[in-house]
């Protein structure tokens, strides 16, 4: 047995919370070892312990057969452990080369950075592992996938042999995920060991050699993908049977909540970015919008919300022509919006939940009372959301940034659905949340549909699109290129359509 890492009886307590207990994991050299679990199952704490950011209360860590004492990230780097953070630690206004060497610069003449030596070493890493990045590019010019490869190169540059990847696919689109997996295979073939933290069961089944499941701070199962299936993994994760969403077949109503006719739109530089869009959503219908990110989805949302006015054609949102009505009016008429970047666009992170409940409803009853904010109503309605959407928080006075990502998202969904809106725009509503939160969000979207709300579901998750949508529209380079029926289309066909291929 050739073990890269062995964790035994790891325990970590925070005041009032047991973050980790009785954690036992064995990770073989050259493996991709997945650690899965719901948000709050203790994965992150465990990785912080391994990376030296948190000290365990008890338990032992053995690296390459030797008992290790890890007190700081520097210690763990010294032992050949590298961390690829979920939120990239890169400077935009600097080159790839500079980002990689920072902190471990090769030096000549005492103070001068030996960029030539660094470049040679990085080029070697890039070619050995097929990372496909260019050292002289500015990071601000890079896409998400490339940035991630820079992070990986950064860790390899420091001589890491064990890589921890914290939810690496949360920010990637399907093609980028494939590229990442190719890179990871390349790394393990060269003898490196990878710890892959995730809650996406599909990916774990595809990539992992071994899977450890965590629940409530402890390890509950260790399985190989060949001996298990997604359903079983999900049950390990949540400790029970999963409710499976199913669309009750109802007939969408006649009335339309959205009518986009031949609309074109330009971006700030005057380039046409949406071309001849035709899109209708009926009340009581979920329209899925599939497409690789950056093909005009965000612009389309802005167009529908009235933030961007169409250059030609027309957009009528919940009965209002966006050329005349402004965003405020459209929102008040009954449009809910679940933004893609919840921390940036969806919440005031440093404000309590009840204040966040008011956000977007600050001018309408019951959240406002003339020029005054109705604090009581905001608090009691926050309580309703916390209950109905199972938001795990001690109270509605807690700051938004104290909640985990999944719970933040549930709160946003709850807020945007309050007051029974006529239409909901949901952009990546379950990205980066655990299966439990996902099920709750899905249930509520389906319920809203039954109540007669029209939903625009913008998603990169094909599974989600198939499960929830009545129809799927495919957007590609600013045009709607196809409408598909989820009951008769296969994921492969949809994937093909997203790349602009016409389905015969």
């Amino acid at each position, binding site marked *: 047995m050739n073990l890269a890492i062995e964790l035994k009886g790891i325990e970590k307590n925070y005041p009032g919370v047991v973050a980790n207990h009785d954690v036992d994991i064995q990770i073989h050299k050259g493996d991709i070892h997945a650690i899965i679990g719901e948000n709050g199952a203790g994965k992150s704490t465990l990785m912080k312990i391994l990376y030296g950011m948190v000290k365990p209360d008890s338990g032992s860590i053995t690296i390459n057969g030797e008992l290790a004492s890890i007190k700081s*990230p*520097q210690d763990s780097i010294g032992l050949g452990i590298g961390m690829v*953070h979920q*939120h990239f*630690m*890169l*400077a*935009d*206004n*600097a080159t790839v080369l*500079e*980002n990689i*060497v*920072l*902190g*471990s*610069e090769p*030096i000549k003449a005492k*103070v*001068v*950075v030996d960029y030539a030596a660094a470049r040679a070493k990085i080029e070697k890493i890039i070619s050995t592992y097929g990372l496909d990045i260019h050292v002289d590019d*500015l990071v*601000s*010019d890079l896409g998400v996938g490339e940035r991630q490869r820079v992070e990986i190169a950064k860790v390899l540059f420091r001589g890491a042999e064990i890589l921890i990847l914290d939810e690496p696919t949360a920010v990637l689109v399907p093609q980028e995920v494939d590229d990442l997996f190719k890179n990871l295979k390349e790394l393990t073939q060269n003898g490196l060991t990878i710890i892959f933290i995730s809650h996406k069961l599909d990916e774990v089944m595809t990539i992992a050699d071994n899977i450890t499941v965590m629940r409530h701070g402890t390890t509950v199962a260790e399985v190989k993908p060949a001996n298990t299936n997604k359903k079983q993994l999900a049950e390990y994760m949540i400790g029970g049977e999963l409710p499976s969403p199913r669309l009750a077949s109802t007939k969408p109503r006649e009335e339309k909540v959205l009518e986009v006719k031949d609309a074109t739109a330009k*971006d*700030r*530089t005057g380039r046409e970015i949406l071309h001849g869009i035709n899109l209708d959503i009926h009340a009581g219908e979920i329209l899925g919008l599939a497409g690789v990110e*950056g093909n005009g989805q965000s612009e389309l949302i802005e167009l529908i919300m009235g933030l961007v006015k169409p250059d030609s054609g027309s957009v009528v949102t919940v009965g209002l022509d966006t050329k005349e009505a402004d965003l405020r009016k459209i929102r008040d008429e009954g449009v809910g919006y679940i933004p893609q970047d919840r921390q940036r666009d969806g919440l005031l992170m440093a404000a309590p939940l009840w204040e966040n409940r008011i956000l977007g409803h600050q001018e309408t009853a019951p959240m406002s009372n003339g020029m005054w904010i109705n604090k009581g109503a905001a608090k009691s309605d926050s309580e309703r959301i916390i209950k109905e959407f199972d938001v795990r928080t001690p109270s509605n006075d807690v700051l938004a940034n104290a909640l985990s990502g999944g719970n933040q998202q549930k709160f946003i969904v709850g807020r945007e659905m309050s007051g029974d809106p006529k239409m909901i725009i949901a952009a990546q509503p379950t990205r980066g949340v655990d299966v439990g939160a996902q099920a709750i969000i899905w249930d509520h979207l389906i319920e809203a549909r039954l109540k007669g709300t029209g939903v625009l579901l913008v998603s990169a998750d094909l599974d989600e699109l198939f499960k929830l949508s009545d129809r799927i529209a495919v957007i590609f380079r600013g045009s709607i290129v196809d409408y598909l029926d989820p009951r008769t289309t296969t994921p492969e066909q949809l994937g093909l359509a997203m790349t602009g291929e016409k389905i015969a």
Partner: protein
Amino acid sequence: MSTLKENRLWRIITSPSRMMLTVAGVVILVSVVRQFTGISDITSPGAAGATIRFTIPLLMAGLGGLWAERSGVINIGLEGMMILGTWFGAWFGYLYGPWVGIFAGAVGGALAGLLHAILTVRVGIDQAVSGLAINLLGAGTARFLSGVFFIGAGGDVNVSPQVKSISSFTVPGLSPFLTSLGQKHILVISDVAGVVAGFITSINWASLVMILALPLTSWILWKTRFGLRMRFCGENPSAAESLGVNVYRTRYIALAVSGALAGLGGAYISVVVTGNYLEGQTAGRGYIGLAAVIFGNWQPAGVLAGAALFGLTDALRVRQSTSVHALLLVVIVLAAVYSLTKLRKKDWKGFGINLGIAVFVLAYYMINKVVPDEFVTFFPNLTTILVLAFLSQKLRPPAMAGAPYRKGEES
């Protein structure tokens, strides 16, 4: 995607060959204007020399601002640091000679820089508030110290005794030759000769030493380990910290240097330009230095360009105000040419705006004989506002300059 394009554009605009062409075009244009208006002072050696004297304090303040902002801290306190530089420069220059004075000016500025570091980095005070406090403190301290030290030494509460001057040098042979060539009024040749003559005639040794700060800053920022780490402290301090960079210490050093540079700029004014301390003699040059940082897109060479442009208008105003009036012709032609390039790209709005500017300035030029001094003083502020308004998409300030940073907290 759009940032990618803009970056390329920016790189092309700032590429050396393009810069050379632009410079050559402007030289020819200025030369023609000089010939046409008959105001020969625009390109005289005297004007060039004065431009250097007005540019250096702005350049030093600008480089000071650059050091601070590149490390992630906005330094509005440059003005106060400059004031301390003028005072320390004059007093220690009077006591121990001009070079000691200049060194003391740097120390005075550096102390204020360290104070700014303690307040913003350690205590966590808002950077603008701390900077303003330092400006008030600088002016007040100088006034107080003047009262204590100058009165007994032959100065007054707002004037110091005279400092011995630092010697100058002139390149022999070449300088007289170019000066006489400059007086012949030959198109372009005389103009270039006149300006170059100004750069090599009676140049103060202190000017030369100070200009060295520019290449030194570039070298430190882009070649050394400290420079790399300092830039990351301004771009993404959490990332820098996660890789073992001591952000606090780096910012302390950067702010001390920032203050020292501003102090040098101040000492240059009191020791070299006027030969004594006069209350209020910095006249807001610390703020203009910050404007030069923005104008120069946070690049050392850009800061020089900004400082030189603002220094030039300042120098011409002081020497002969009709010169500034003549330079309006340059603005008119530049705006007209620029509007034509917009026309070619079918950018009607840009065409209209630039043509409008050209016509407006032309009308102003025809109606008036001089540009009011107040406007010239206001010129750097106006330029900075215009740069911010029209080029902000292309500016690349350090991403985290001005943002509070606490160790261990993710921003």
